């Protein structure tokens, strides 16, 4: 009798352990998640391979793009986020091809692909070690995803366990400008964000 009780208890214990393990095992995306370095605005955040600082994050209802004498207006069902900063490679030349706006609720918005490539956004550039370079990121997000948003930058979306920099923006979602114009410049920096502030 004692023996049977022992066996039953052992069986129950094993089942409980297995159940617990099944329900607490990490997600695949957690196991292969990038190595995150976090920071705030106007601070240089260092990852292993590159560094990034953001100094301006603005939000507007309408985005005007002026390139080569042509102007086009981009409307949205949400708002436009325009973020500027400076990026620098540390040891080798690299590209920064992945930029995302991570909302407070965990929804991701990638860099807009509506704006023509004549406006050089972050993925279009090459970053050399020791030569910091201005970066421009533009996102299209719903209005409720603005406040508490985080800019996430990585070399590529495809390399698991690579570097990733997350910078919490300071936008409140209240000071939304009616329109922002991005103008292509012929000299450095390659764009101007208007109206200047």
């Amino acid at each position, binding site marked *: 009798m004692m023996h049977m009780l022992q066996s039953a208890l052992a069986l129950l214990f094993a089942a409980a352990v297995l159940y617990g393990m099944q329900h607490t*095992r990490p997600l*695949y995306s957690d196991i292969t998640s990038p190595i995150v370095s976090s920071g705030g605005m106007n601070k240089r955040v260092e990852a292993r391979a590159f560094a990034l600082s953001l100094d301006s994050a603005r939000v507007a209802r309408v985005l005007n793009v002026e390139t080569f004498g042509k102007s086009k207006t981009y409307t*949205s*069902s949400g708002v436009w986020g325009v973020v500027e900063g400076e990026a620098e490679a540390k040891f080798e030349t690299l590209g920064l091809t992945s930029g995302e706006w991570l909302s407070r609720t965990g929804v991701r*918005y*990638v860099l807009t692909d*509506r704006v023509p490539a004549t406006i050089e956004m972050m993925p279009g550039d090459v970053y050399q070690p020791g030569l910091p370079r201005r970066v421009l990121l533009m996102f*299209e997000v719903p209005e409720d*995803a603005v406040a508490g948003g985080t800019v996430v930058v990585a070399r590529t979306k495809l390399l698991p366990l690579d570097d990733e920099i997350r910078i919490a923006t300071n936008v409140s979602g209240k000071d939304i400008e009616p329109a922002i114009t991005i103008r292509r410049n012929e000299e450095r920096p390659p764009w101007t964000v208007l109206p200047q502030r």
Partner: protein
Amino acid sequence: MTELTRTTVRQRLYAFLIAGLGGLAASAISFSMTLYEAAHPPKAPVVQAGQQIDTGRWFVTLRTARVGTVPPTGVPPSRPVQLLMVDMDVVNRSATPNNVLHRVVTLSAPTQKLPMPTVYLDRDKYLAGYFNPNMPERLTMAWEWPAGVPVPDKVTITVTGQTYKLRDNLYGASGWYDRDPVATVDLPVEKAP
């Protein structure tokens, strides 16, 4: 302590037989159920144009269909083609941007398989890229209609559902997977002059 009883060869044989036959029966039943389901796919409900369809990952509202030679960009292609264009509203309900709508909205073409459609964003009158989560957009999907095939007065659009799996069976990674059609919509084809 109970005395351990030794099973006879006959008993063991029976146990093996029962377990084997049971397993065989289970696989036979499961296989024939799969065959039956594949042979009798569930009928997707017919939905009216203008009614929102929930596919799991998307909200899709089909509006109108028309045939023409000029895509929504306003620039006619260098080699004249007939385009079957379908206007619709979509909302991406997942947590990441996505642009694989051609697997969700398919045209039940009367004769042959059509090439992949081109998606135009109405806002820009230009090629659409990613559709961001929770941002409703109106778009036009344009299929190149094969030359020499008459365009029917009515087309049937099939809308396929997608389901979210937190852990897939291979890696344990999360993702969206195509499921059965959730709706079909009949759209009259307007013929532009």
